[in-house]
C-alpha cells in the first residue's frame, strides 16, 4: 500500500444518505479478476444521468468526496473502494460509514473520515480541502482547521504504507502457539 500523508484537492459532494456499494460499483463489474481499472465503472448507473453530481464539470479531478451518513453500506465488495480510488478519490468524508466499506478503504489507503453531520455539511460548501493525516486535521482554503479522529494503529499503517499481512506474520509464533492449544473444531478436508 502506498503511504498516505497529505491529501490536497478539489471536493466533490454527493448529498445522499445510505449510498450502498451496489451503487458505487454495480455487480456486472465484479466479474473481473483484476484489482485495477474500476474507476470508469464508478457509480455506473447514476452517471447515466447528466445531472448526477459527479458529472458536473467542477467535480472533475476531485480528490475528496463529501457525502451522507452510512456511506458504503451493504455488500462487502472491495471493488467499491477500488473504484473510488481508481477514479481519483483519496479521501471520503461522511457522518458514518458501512463497517466493511470503512475497513476496506483503510486497507487500500483510501482515507475514510467520520465527522459530525453539521461539520460534514460545512465541508460540503468548500471547493478545496487539505487533509493532513499526520496532524489529523482538515484545512479549508481560508485556513480554518477541523480535527478528526482515526484509530492510532490505522493512522500508523497509512502514514507508513505498511503491509498489514506482513505485520501479522511477525506474530507467527503466537499464531502457531494458539493453534497448538486451540485445535479448530472441524477440518474442511475431513468431510
Amino acid at each position: 500500500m502506498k503511504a498516505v500523508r497529505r491529501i490536497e484537492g478539489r471536493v466533490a459532494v454527493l448529498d445522499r444518505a445510505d449510498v450502498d456499494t451496489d451503487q458505487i460499483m454495480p455487480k456486472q463489474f465484479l466479474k473481473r479478476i483484476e484489482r485495477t481499472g474500476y474507476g470508469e465503472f464508478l457509480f455506473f448507473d447514476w452517471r447515466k444521468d447528466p445531472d448526477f453530481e459527479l458529472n458536473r464539470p467542477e467535480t472533475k479531478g476531485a480528490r475528496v468526496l463529501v457525502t451522507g451518513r452510512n456511506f458504503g453500506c451493504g455488500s462487502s465488495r472491495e471493488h467499491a473502494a477500488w473504484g473510488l480510488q481508481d477514479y481519483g478519490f483519496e479521501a471520503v468524508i461522511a457522518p458514518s460509514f458501512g463497517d466493511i466499506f470503512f475497513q476496506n478503504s483503510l486497507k487500500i489507503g483510501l482515507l475514510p473520515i467520520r465527522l459530525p453531520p453539521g461539520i460534514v455539511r460545512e465541508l460540503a460548501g468548500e471547493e478545496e480541502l487539505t487533509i493532513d493525516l499526520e496532524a489529523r486535521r482538515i484545512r479549508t482554503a481560508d485556513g480554518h482547521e477541523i480535527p478528526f479522529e482515526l484509530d492510532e494503529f490505522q493512522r500508523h499503517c497509512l502514514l507508513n504504507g505498511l503491509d498489514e499481512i506482513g505485520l501479522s506474520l511477525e506474530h507467527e509464533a503466537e499464531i502457531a502457539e494458539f493453534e497448538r492449544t486451540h485445535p479448530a473444531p472441524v477440518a474442511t478436508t475431513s468431510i
Partner: protein
Amino acid sequence: MGKTLFERIWASHVVREEPGEPALLYVDLHLIHEVTSPQAFDGLRLAGRGVRRPDLSVATMDHNVPTTDGPITDPLAREQLDALRRNCEEFGIPLYPTGSGREGIVHVIGPELGLTQPGMTIVCGDSHTSTHGAFGTLAFGIGTSEVEHVLATQCIAQRRPRTMRVEFVGTPPLGVTAKDVILGAIGRLGVGGGVGHVLEYAGEAVRGFSMANRMTICNMSIEAGARAGMIAPDDTTFAYLEGRPGAPKGADWEQALDRWRALASDDDAVFDAEVEIDVRELAPQVTWGTNPGMVVPVDSVVPDPSEFDEPDDRAAAERALTYMGLEPGTPIADIRVDRVFIGSCTNARIEDLRVAAAVVDGKRVSDGVRALVVPGSAAVKRQAEEEGLDRVFERAGFEWRRAGCSMCLGMNPDILAPGERCASTSNRNFEGRQGSGGRTHLVSPAMAAAAAIAGRFVDVRELEPAAVA
C-alpha cells in the same frame, strides 16, 4: 458481571491483544467464493505467501453460476470460476464446484455440511456471512484485502465491536414469518442502526424459530448495518447439527454439547445497547423503497415522503419512490408484480421452499407474471425434488432452477429488465440490485408465493388456513 455470547467467543479466539492495536483473532472457518477471492490469491502469489490453513477453508461456486442447464456462456463469469478452480488446486483448498452435488450458496452449504458450529469464528468475503450467527457463531463479512490476510495468517485483525441485544417480545401471529420479523426490525432500527455492533437476537419468538428461520434473521443483520448477528445455541441448534458430515461424532458429540450449552449470554451480562421489538401484532412486511429499512405492513400504504422528520430521510424517500415508480398513499395490495423470485441465502432453504409450495399448491401463477424458484444448494434441490416440491412449483407455472445466488444480485443471466417489478425473498432492494432499472420488493417466501398467484401483493393470511399453517 456476566458475559455475553459474543464476549465468550471473542475471548476464546484472541491470539494477541495489545493496547493501541486491533486484536488478532483466530478464524475457525474461512468460506470462499469466486467473486471476492481472485485478487486475494493474486496478492498471495505476488508476495510469495501461502495459505496457512487450507484445511480450515472451503470454497464453492455460487454468485456467477447459471441456474439453467448447459454450460456457462458468459466468458467473464467462466474465467472467474476457472480462476477459483485453479486457485483452490494450487493452494490445496477443498472446492465444491458446480456439479459436485455439494455446491450451493456459501451460506447455505456451510450449515448444511455441519461446518458451521456453535462457538466458532467464521469469515467470508461476503456481507451475508452474518447468517452463520444463527448457530451461536461469530460470523461476519470481510473485504478482499482481509480475505488475503485470512488466507495468509488464518487470523483477522479486529477492533472489538459493540454489542446490542435485540429482544423480540412475544411470538408473531400465524402467517407472519421470520422474514417479516427481521424486516420489521430493520424498519425500526434503520439501515444504519446497527453500525459498529454485533447483534444478539433473543426472546420467545427466537426460541420458537427453526434453524432456517434463525438463519433468515441473522442473515439480514447486515441490512441494519450490523457487523454480525447471533443467536445462542439450544436444543434446536443441536438437533439440526447432529449427524451432519462436519458435526462431531460419538464421545466428541457429547463433549461438544457441554461446550455449546455453556456459550449462552449470562442473565446479568451487559450489552452496550438493548432494543425491544414487540412482534405480537406484526403483519407480513413489504418493502416499498430502495433499502431494506423502507418497509411497511402489507395492509398499509406507500408512505408520503413529507411524513419523514429528517431532511435526509425525506430526500431518500422521494428518490426511492421515483425509482420505484410508486405514488404515496397507494395501498400495498394494489401494487402489481411482473416477476417473483424465491431464492437467496436469506430464503432458499428447504423449509422456505415448503412454505412457498404450500401456498401455490393447486393454483396458477397469474397471467403475465414470470416466477422463479432457485434452491439454495444442490442438496436443497435434491431434497425438494424428493418431496415433490419441484412438481408443485412447475404445475403452478414456476420455473424450477439449479442452485445459486441467481437473481438476488443478478450476476448471472437471471435479471430484471428495466422497470420490471419483482416480489423477492432476497435481502436487498437497492437500485439496480436485481438488474439495472429493476424494482425489488422484499417479502417472505409465503408472501412471494402469494404475489405470484395474485399478480399483486396480498396478505398471505387472507388465503385459506392450510397455506399458512
